[in-house]
């Protein structure tokens, strides 16, 4: 009887449990993150034009900038001036391009981005004066020389999105 009681008591005594803390560390730093939301596709409205304009069957590339520090970065977006990949082209290609604000996470503090943008050549620069996310969309058009037809093949061009700390 006594032995049974002792055994029962032993089962009730909790064994010493070791707990180990698993630390989760994080480091919050000011940053600018460039995100490619939509890569963009060239439409081919006629034989001698490739364009990302939606009206011509293209898809406009969209880039998002997320900044966590106000007034610390410039966004520069440059539309293409040459093909990164194309069939052999014997004539010149004329390039036009533009970039504009597509969407803002904070319309109050970012409302002036579009009016204050600076454009030089194919590059558009925005002063990111507020924290949050900004979406920029670009249009790129390539016209083949003398309105000749682009040869068949795959065409790829680079849009460069840069974030520069002030």
């Amino acid at each position, binding site marked *: 009887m006594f032995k049974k009681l002792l055994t029962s008591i032993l089962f009730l005594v909790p064994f010493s449990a070791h707990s180990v803390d698993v630390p989760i560390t994080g480091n919050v730093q000011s*940053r600018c993150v460039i*995100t*490619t939301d939509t890569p963009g596709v060239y439409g081919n409205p006629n034989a001698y034009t490739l364009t990302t304009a939606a009206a011509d069957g293209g898809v406009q590339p969209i880039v998002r900038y997320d900044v966590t520090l106000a007034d610390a970065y410039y966004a520069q977006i440059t539309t293409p001036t040459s093909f990164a990949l194309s069939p052999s082209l014997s004539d010149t290609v004329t390039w036009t391009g533009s970039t504009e604000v597509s969407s803002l996470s904070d319309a109050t503090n970012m409302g002036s981005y579009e009016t204050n943008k600076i454009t030089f050549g194919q590059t558009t620069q925005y002063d990111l004066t507020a*924290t949050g996310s900004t979406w920029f969309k670009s249009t790129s058009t390539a016209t083949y020389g003398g309105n000749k037809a682009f040869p068949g093949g795959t065409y*790829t061009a680079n*849009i460069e999105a*840069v974030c520069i700390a002030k």
Partner: protein
Amino acid sequence: MKKILFTITLLLFFTKAFAHDMVPTYPEFRPSYLEGVLVTDLELFNKRNDVDYYEITVFDEFWNTVPFVTSYKILKLSYLERVKFSVYIRSKDRNRATYICTKSRIRGEVGPSTVISSMICSKIKKDY
């Protein structure tokens, strides 16, 4: 401010977009174990599944390249991989060196489209 940071966090974690991220924004050079050579550390995060390589460059304020040394000038970085790297410059270039940039290297075989190359430039802190 908290609302904005929360929104950014949500966007970063729950969207299917592809991002390029580098910190710190303002790196600072310090003396290295080599005489006449300065070093700083940066961290790069690849959240672009269309990019495997990033090129490191150091520029002056006029965007001329400044000589520098690092383990790999072109870093191989898999999707969702994070890497810390050090950049070394000569002490005599400390006033010239202004930006440290990483630029995505796009694969050549992408389809009939525009591709977006991303470049992030940190500005070197100069408090001397």
